[in-house]
Structure formats: C-alpha cells, structure tokens
C-alpha cells in the first residue's frame, strides 16, 4: 500500500531539503520511492508543493485529492490550502508560522483567522507547533524544515537513529549539529 506525504509551504522555506531527507531515509528502508518537486518560477515566494510517495511499487509521482496520509506544512495558510488532498484519516503536521502572501500585503485580501481550529472542526487531526522558535533555538531560522521532520518522525515506526543518520547524510557537515538539535526539538525530546 503506497503511503503519501505532501510537503507544502512558501518558496524558499526549505521544502526541498525535507523531501531529500525523506527520500533518502525511505529508500534506505527498502521502499520504492518517488519524490516530485517544484523548480522555477513558483519557487520565488509562491505556494510550493512537494510530493513524497513510498511503498512496494509506486507509479504516479504526484499525490491527488483525498490521498495524503500526511500534510507537512511550513505555514498555516498553506496547510489550509491543501486540506482537500488529505486522506480520510490523514494527519496534518504544521508550523504555526503565518507568512502574508502578496494579496494580503497589498490589502487586496485578508489572511483568514483561526485556520487551525477550522481545520480541526472538519475532524482532522492537526499537530501544530511553533517550528520557527524551535529552529531559532537550535541555531537558525532556516532549520524549520528539520524541526518539522522531527515532529513527523513521531508518527513513523522508523527509529529516531535512522532519521538522524539520514540528516547527517543529507546536510552539509558544518550544519549537522544544528540540524540534529532541530530534529530533537521537533520530536519534543530536547
């Protein structure tokens, strides 16, 4: 049975490293894996989506509505935007950070309020945390991606050590310690 993880956020927030880490980890666990990324124009501060799919045999590189086991979101509005992609008993793991999109900045639209509560009223399990503060505590605001991976790891049977090994293998050596810290903060184990 193919499992689906959707990573959503704002271009530039570091979702490519998160998907790289997941791909690396799941491959080493022996799964067939497909990861679909976004490059080019939409990377420039736009809404970005990365799909990670794994299982015995994976065909489609993308995740469609009603299919995601997890939505991992770097930002509240982006979590809300992709709710339709969630499977019936799927779960959202999200950063509580809010980043105003340009229509909100220019005043053409307003940022919806109480989004997490509204998602929860649909009966969806939402694991929300302030990843930005935890990333800063670990040493860099850029480590939000690894904080989120730490949180996501709690819902997998794969031991923490294997996630940590994958982090070491996927990030530059000089940032390894910082990211290991970010991972543990995300897991709530430090």
């Amino acid at each position: 049975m193919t499992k689906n993880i959707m990573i959503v956020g704002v271009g530039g927030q570091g979702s490519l490293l998160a998907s790289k880490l997941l791909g690396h980890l799941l491959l080493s666990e022996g799964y067939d894996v497909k990861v679909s990324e976004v490059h080019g124009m939409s990377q420039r501060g736009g809404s970005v989506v990365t799909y990670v799919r794994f299982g015995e045999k994976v065909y489609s590189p993308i995740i469609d509505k009603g299919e995601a086991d997890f939505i991992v979101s770097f930002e509240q509005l982006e979590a809300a935007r992709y709710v339709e992609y969630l499977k019936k008993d799927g779960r959202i793991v999200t950063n509580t950070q809010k980043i105003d999109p340009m229509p909100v900045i220019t005043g053409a639209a307003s940022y919806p309020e109480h989004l997490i509560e509204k998602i929860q009223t649909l009966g969806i399990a939402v694991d929300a945390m302030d990843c930005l503060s935890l990333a800063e505590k670990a040493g860099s605001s850029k480590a939000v991606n690894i904080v989120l991976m730490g949180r996501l790891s709690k819902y997998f049977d794969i031991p923490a050590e294997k996630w940590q090994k994958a982090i070491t293998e996927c990030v530059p050596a000089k940032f390894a310690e910082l990211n290991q810290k970010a991972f543990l903060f995300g897991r709530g184990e430090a």
Partner: protein
Amino acid sequence: MRQLMLGNQALARGLYEAGCSVVSSYPGTPSTEVTEEAAKYDAIYCEWAPNEKVAMEVAFGASLAGKRSFCGMKHVGLNVAADPLFTCSYTGVNAGMVICVADDAGMHSSQNEQDSRHHAIASKIPMLEPADSGEAYAFAKKAFALSEEFDTPVIIKMCTRVAHSQSIVEEGTRVVPDPIPYEKNIAKYVMMPGNAIRRHPIVEERTRKLVQFAESCEFNRIEMGSAELGIITSSTSYQYVKEVFGERASILKLGMVNPLPERLILDFAAKVEKLVIVEELDPIIENHCKQLGLTVTGKDVLPMEGEYSQNLIAERLGVQIPAYRKLNETMPNRPPVMCAGCPHRGLFYILSKNQCTVLGDIGCYTLGAVAPLNAMEMTLCMGASISSVHGFNKALGAESEGRTVAVIGDSTFMHSGMTGLANIAYNQSNSTVIILDNSITGMTGHQQNPTTGYNIKGDPAGKIDLESLCRSMGFARVAVVDPYDLDACDRVLKEELAACEPSVIISRRPCALLKYVKHNPPLTVKEEKCVGCKSCMKLGCPAISIKDKKAAIDNTLCVGCGVCQQLCKFDALQPGEVQK
C-alpha cells in the same frame, strides 16, 4: 548502486555512461538540471551556450567531428533551435547526437504549453519519451546507438513530472565508443538545394525503417491486464493510468512517440474491447489511431490543456475517486513574487512611477507585471522586448518614444536580445532599452552566462562587456545605474527617454540570492515616526507588511537593501544595527 535520482539527473547519468563527450545547452525549466548534472562529470565537456540554436549547432559540430554529443532545452527553446533541427534531420549525424526537450504541461514555469512532439513529427526525427528516472537513464544510454544506427539525431522528450521527480535508478559504468573519424562528405553535409534534394528521400526512407523499428523495439511494450479496456499511453500519463487501473486494463506503453508503430497498435486494439488514448496536451497518438481506422476515446473526454493526474483520469473515465474534505474559507492566493532585496524591484518602481509603457521579456523580472508594481505590459518570448519596442515606436513615433521602454535580463539579452538591438541601431528608432544586469541567469536557478565571466563549472571564462558591446553597435548613449538608488534611476530614465536618439540603460546589481552577495541587517521601523502612509508598500516587497496600521519588517526576509527607506518621507525606516 540503487539511488533516487531526479529524471534530469538520471538522463545525465545515461549520457555519461553512453560515452557522450560534448554537451552544450541553454538553461530552461524544467530541462536545466540535465546539463548541470552532466557538468559534474569531468569526462564530459559541458557548456552553457548563449541560446538553444547555438547549443544545437555546437552539438552538431561535435557529432560531425566524431564524438557523441548532446544539447538540452525547454520546449520553447526548441523553437529557437528549430532551424538547425530541421536540417540536421537531412544531414544526419556522424557520431550519435541526442537532443533533450522538456515540455511543461501545466505551465509551472513557462509562457505556453506547446507539445514538442509536433517538432519531432515536422522534422522527421525519432523521439523517445521516458516515464520515470529509470527510463530517462536507460533511454539516454540507448539513444546514441539509435542515432548512429539510423543516421539521425534523436530527441528525448521529458516533461515537468518526469524531469523533476525522483525515482530509483540502478547505475552502470561509462563505456566510451571509439571516435568515428570525420570524413569530408560534401553531398551529405552541405545542404544546398542540389544536395538537400538528394537527402530528402533518404529521410523518408529512414522514417519507413523507423516505423518498422517501432513495431518491435524495446521502447514500446504491452502490459496485458483485463481485455475489457485497452489504454495506449506514454510518459507520466502511463504512471497515472497504472495508478488508476492497475491490472484492470491492458496497456500499450509507448516509449518511442515518433514515428508511431502501426502493426503494434492494430494488434493491441484487436486484443481489447474498448480503446482509450491517454496523452497530455495534443491528440497525436489519438489522431494516428484514427488514421489507422480505429475507434478510440481520447480528447472527447480528456482535456487538451494542463497536466493530468490520477484523479483527473479516473473521473473522466468513470472511476470513483477518493472522498475528501473541504474548508469553507476564501483562501488568498500566494503567487510568486520578486524576492526581498531583488535588484529589479527599484527599477520597476521607477518605471511604474513614471507611467512608462514597459515591453518585457522572460525571466524573474517578468514578475514586475504583478501587483502592486503592475509595471510590465507585454511578455512574449526570449528577446521580444527589444524587437517589439522598436516596432511599437515605429508605429507610434514620438507619441510613444518618450515613455516606452524595453526591459530584458542579462542572460536573455545574450540569448536573443542582441539581434533586436542591432535592428534598433540599424533601422534607427528612438528606443530606450533597459538591460537588467543581475550578473546571473536567475529564474532557472543561477546559471552563468557570457556576461558573468564564469563558465558552467564556475571557473573564469570569457566575459562580454555590455557597455562596449552596445557602444560598438552604434549606441552613443549607454548609462549604468544601481537599481538600489531610486533617485539615480529616476534621473537616468528621464534623461534617456527625453534624448533624441536610441539609448541603453544598464541597471546593474547582482541577484540578492547569489552566495557572494553580502546582505545588510534587516531594517527597523521607528513606530513613533511611522504614520502608516503605506508609501513603502508600493514596492511589493514580501518583507514589508502593515501591522496595526504601521509598517512592519519581516526580519527573516529583509536583506537590508534600503530601497523602502528611500520612499519613507518620515524617516520611519532605519538601517538595522550590525550584529557583532
């Protein structure tokens, strides 16, 4: 070793293992990484060419000389390279020559969603279409032998979902074939009418042989499942079809999409009760089947535009899709925007303030067209800004000359802006051309170009001096401004628009995302001074917002460029303190 590879990376691996020796490309999403990855192999000579036509001709020259060669480009790039493409079909090759074209159904990062298969059909060149990274690798490896066997260039067609998806690839080793000695052969390689007339029948004969090859080649395969439904498909659509139907349909999976087989399709059709064609964009396989006299379902239920997905195919073919929940909420869009500190922003602000008519071009700066700047009124294709401003001014004369400008990036200028500039110099319109020189090819992810002084590997290379180039074309007025300096931009723009001769303004500052660019600390807002006038908001900087009626700076985004500070009449925006 089994590893996850991006489709483009896998294709590059295939080139390497096939002994490809020369690669020349122009970057373009979603094709760029093929050449970036190929450049990581020291055994391959790789370069960024100024444009796709040059790249293809470089690859052709290398093939002629007897070494396996490659060029890669996005779909619209193949239009630029169409001239050599159509005629190297006639000459054929010496050593194998492979061309990659990457389509962008869904237009993730493109100005149209043309279907490149038309180019393969029109130029009578075989086209392979992989469906994942494993096939991208294998097809690239085999394409060279195909090229040499049939004496033709071979096109590999990628699409965004194959190019930018990672899947598993099992690597092999590089085998370099013996170079094929170059031999003078005027009748084959000099395409003047007397020779080309004799080459055309050879091309037609080659196509007949390629059809025979397609009937039983390893690129096309049948996967028999239920005989109730037969689906002919290719590329990423194959993956969606497998996802939806699994064994509940029989599939003819085409890996070679030009020329298409005949017998194979008729035999497959005879085995199934109903035949459906699933292909993104144009009905090329479908029309071929109809010409073979088959009754098929295709574009009567499936769209001609956009990307497909498993749910789209399921719904259109009457299969239940999974249930999902919806949030009853109006969600603001999040369109891409120029980055905080983008050097283009200041210049576009000045163009907007001066109510200029701006004819634009292809690059990050196309985002100058979106609110609140709204400072671009046309974008067509690479280089069109300069040629079009000339036409615009020739049509309207003095009425438009004093307020109309072309804006074009440094890389786009090298790609196809120079010829337009030559036209202005030659046919003399009083046009103002602004070259946005951010010292890199930005949109595609920071590739070097002939103006940067570095090559694809980051080593020092030739550097074209834009000022000297423009002057040598006959432009007496060439001004350079720093787009972070709004007063200077305003002054220079007014001067050049008022001048009675054509001029070039070079707006020069490196892309804020380049690693060597040092940022200033984020600006701070003196709340007691901010009156909430929103002047700073006219820039459309993602780092500035209004919170409780006062300007607020997002410290995680602001790079301290100071452009907003120049708009604040109340000194409310102040340079941030340097952290010790």
